[in-house]
């Protein structure tokens, strides 16, 4: 092989190795922690609103229910942007990395249906008591969004995606099978998935972050 062919081959090998080694975690442990804590707090607030002695003093209405969870999403996205910026600054990398662009391209199509359904819910859907359908749409498509990054994401993120997806599709089945479910099932599902699942994920991601080398060294 002459030097020119070798140069071309070297560049190909470098590109392949670097692409294969690049794993992008679309949801960092701190973001999952913030999202999880905000979700649990919101679920508790909505749950307690049904009691006369609560600080809210009245039952949360369907549109308010949706707005509370949209607020949780907005705050979590802001927190995520801050964590990404801080990480980029400390490592000297750009804020919008190639990994982030790749993740956004994969996730974006999965956001169209929940976004349109949410708009419909806020305009008309809230009149028909379809909070459970709204929650199922959010949970299922969030799971699909996470799974769309599975090719370049760590395994824990794909597991989180499957947990959301399977929980989301099982909710209507359980709701049909069990009679007399309480009215706060949508809120419980939100607290369970966006709250508890994210907290478990944060704990797992954090422990891996603190223990990067898992194998013994033979040196």
């Amino acid at each position, binding site marked *: 092989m002459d030097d020119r062919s070798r140069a071309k081959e070297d*560049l190909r090998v470098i590109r392949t190795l670097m692409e294969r080694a690049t794993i992008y975690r679309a949801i960092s442990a701190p973001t999952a922690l913030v999202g999880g804590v905000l979700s649990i707090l919101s679920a508790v607030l909505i749950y307690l609103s049904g009691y006369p002695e609560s600080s809210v003093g009245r039952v949360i209405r369907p549109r308010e229910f949706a707005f509370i969870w949209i607020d949780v999403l907005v705050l979590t996205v802001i927190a995520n942007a801050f964590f990404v910026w801080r990480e980029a600054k400390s490592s000297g990398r750009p804020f919008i990395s190639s990994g982030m662009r790749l993740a956004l391209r994969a996730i974006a199509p999965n956001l169209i249906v929940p976004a349109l359904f949410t708009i419909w819910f806020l305009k008309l859907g809230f009149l028909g008591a379809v909070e459970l359908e709204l929650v199922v749409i959010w949970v299922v498509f969030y799971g699909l969004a996470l799974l769309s990054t599975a090719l370049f994401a760590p395994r824990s993120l794909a597991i989180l995606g499957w947990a959301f997806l399977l929980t989301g599709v099982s909710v209507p089945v359980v709701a049909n099978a069990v009679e007399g479910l309480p009215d706060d099932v949508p809120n419980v599902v939100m607290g369970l998935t966006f709250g508890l699942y994210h907290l478990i994920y944060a704990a797992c991601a954090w422990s891996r972050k603190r223990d990067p080398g898992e194998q013994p*060294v033979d040196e």
Partner: protein
Amino acid sequence: MDFDKLDKIIHEKWRLAIMALLASRRSWSFQELKAELKMSDGNLITHMRTLHRLGLISVTKEMRGRPQTSYALTAKGRTSFRDHVAVLEQIVKQWKKN
């Protein structure tokens, strides 16, 4: 001539692969590098020592129940790797032009 600008140390096949991996992440453990490159312990250690001696990589040894060694590119290593890739690209560009 561009060939003369190539860093002979980095240009070796295995060391180039090691540098490419180290450039893709903040740090790699010895076992991760070994698994990714499918190299023997002895071969990998030899190349890592060469790169470390020249100041291209840093080595961190920690005791977390078991001894763990991780490697990262130094600022000099990152610059050398970037320059090396630039020279390779230049060679290929000239080749296409001709």
